């Protein structure tokens, strides 16, 4: 339980599919930082810690960003764990505030690679990708998760339309998120008619790359603006290289710590009011939910047809990255955390889940070879 640190503010930049001249990773991060500090009612001079993750900040590093933001710090972290960077940075920041290493920490992430830049990132993701995957024309992560999806369909008896239920439900939530790049309601006909990208994945199974950034502010719960509930983290766990890529990718590292996470949080999966599950692909949303023990009997097909299609379970209520867009994995993960905070503070507007008090958030990423190697999860609580 992190009793002496809380998330006290959130903010984001605009999201766009095609950044304009003058817009860069740095300017998107600046916009998110300004928004988060305003939301937290924190003067920039009070910030003494920062964590940042980005695929496109280089050749700048975290210290360059601190300098360009005019922040003089005593705690600085740069994370490189992709889709679980946000969760990873959250854990580091909570511990830093609790141990006194810093008192007000900005956690931020953003990317503005553009589509061509993203293709270069995907083809050069690591040495293994450069040597053994990119020369096949593997299509970046789309190809990797196409194969995982086929495996999941075979293992759990899922149909193509089952993934559609998830994409459609998230699009319905996105209609209420002014920052989402795709807000037009989607039907199953739309979903099934979309062109295939990497069989069996079609357009709406693949997270759309956008430019943008997110930021959150971590400090003592007392620093939360007046009249607003602060959000505390009941438990946080992470996993790195959980199986040496020797499994089938249908489980994530979350499977190694889920029981411990719930015990530390003092609640169970059935107590969760709202969930932000890292959604680079619908396949991996189901895998993470299953690892968390949130799918009764591991019956993925029933869960998606009953709980998701019939909107019984508030999942990725900002539309998820599948509809809002993925401004790089780090900021995409932060978007899920920010949404959970807004929900728990009852500030989510038209997409507010009534009486939301407990949320679970996850991160997943860093495709090492056949699937991702990093995962993390946290249980968040509204403090009255």
């Amino acid at each position, binding site marked *: 339980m992190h009793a002496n640190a809380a998330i006290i503010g959130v903010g984001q930049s605009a999201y766009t599919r095609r950044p304009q001249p003058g817009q860069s990773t740095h300017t998107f991060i600046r916009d998110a930082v300004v928004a988060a500090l305003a939301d937290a009612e924190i003067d920039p001079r009070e910030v003494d810690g920062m964590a940042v993750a980005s695929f496109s900040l280089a050749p700048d590093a975290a210290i360059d960003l601190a300098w360009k933001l005019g922040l003089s710090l005593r705690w600085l972290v740069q994370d490189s764990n992709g889709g679980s960077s946000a969760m990873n940075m959250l854990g580091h920041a909570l511990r830093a505030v609790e141990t006194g290493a810093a008192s007000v920490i900005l956690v931020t992430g953003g990317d503005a690679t553009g589509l061509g830049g993203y293709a270069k990132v995907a083809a050069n993701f690591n040495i293994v990708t450069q040597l053994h995957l990119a020369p096949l024309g593997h*299509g970046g992560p789309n190809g990797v998760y196409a*194969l995982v999806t086929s495996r999941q369909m075979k293992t759990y008896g899922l149909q193509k339309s089952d993934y559609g239920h998830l994409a459609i439900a998230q699009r319905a939530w996105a209609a209420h998120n002014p920052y989402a790049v795709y807000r037009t309601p989607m039907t199953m006909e739309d979903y099934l008619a979309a062109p295939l990208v990497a069989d069996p994945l079609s357009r709406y199974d693949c997270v759309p790359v956008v430019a943008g950034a997110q930021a959150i502010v971590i400090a003592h719960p007392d620093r939360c603006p007046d009249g607003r509930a602060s959000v505390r983290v009941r438990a946080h766990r992470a996993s790195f290289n959980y199986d040496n890529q020797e499994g089938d990718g249908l489980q994530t590292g979350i499977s190694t710590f889920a029981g411990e996470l719930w015990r530390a949080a003092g609640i169970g999966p059935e107590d969760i009011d709202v969930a932000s599950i890292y959604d680079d692909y619908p396949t991996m949303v189901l895998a993470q939910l299953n690892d968390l023990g949130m799918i009764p009997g591991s019956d993925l097909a029933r869960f998606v047809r009953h709980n998701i299609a019939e909107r019984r379970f508030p999942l990725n209520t900002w539309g998820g990255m599948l509809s809002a867009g993925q401004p790089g994995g780090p900021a995409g993960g932060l978007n899920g955390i920010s949404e959970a905070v807004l929900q728990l503070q009852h500030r989510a507007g038209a997409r507010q889940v009534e009486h939301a008090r407990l949320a679970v958030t996850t991160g997943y990423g860093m495709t090492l070879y056949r699937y991702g190697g990093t995962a993390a999860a946290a249980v968040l609580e509204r403090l009255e």
Partner: protein
Amino acid sequence: MNRGVAIWRCVKCRTGFFPQRLLCSRCHGDTFEEDRVYEAMVEEISTIRHMLGQTDWQPRRIASVRTSDGQQITVGLTDESEPGTVIELFEENAAPFGAAKK
């Protein structure tokens, strides 16, 4: 083009790896010798129909396969092999490919 695909076998416990590792994940041995595998069974396939940043992309097939030595690797398929097909492996530079065994 080379026949077969290179794997790296731990000298201590004989486990074979692809891609190459620094330490054996089974026994943490630090010495490997290069070996080759020549056959694999296709388990899942995909056709990559779209590639970000490419306008004249021609669809390519990839597959997750299990080699005769047990490694699960991703290969480019140069024919119309389906799941269950036994393929012959070959490599171009360090990239593994395969086609149905003749």
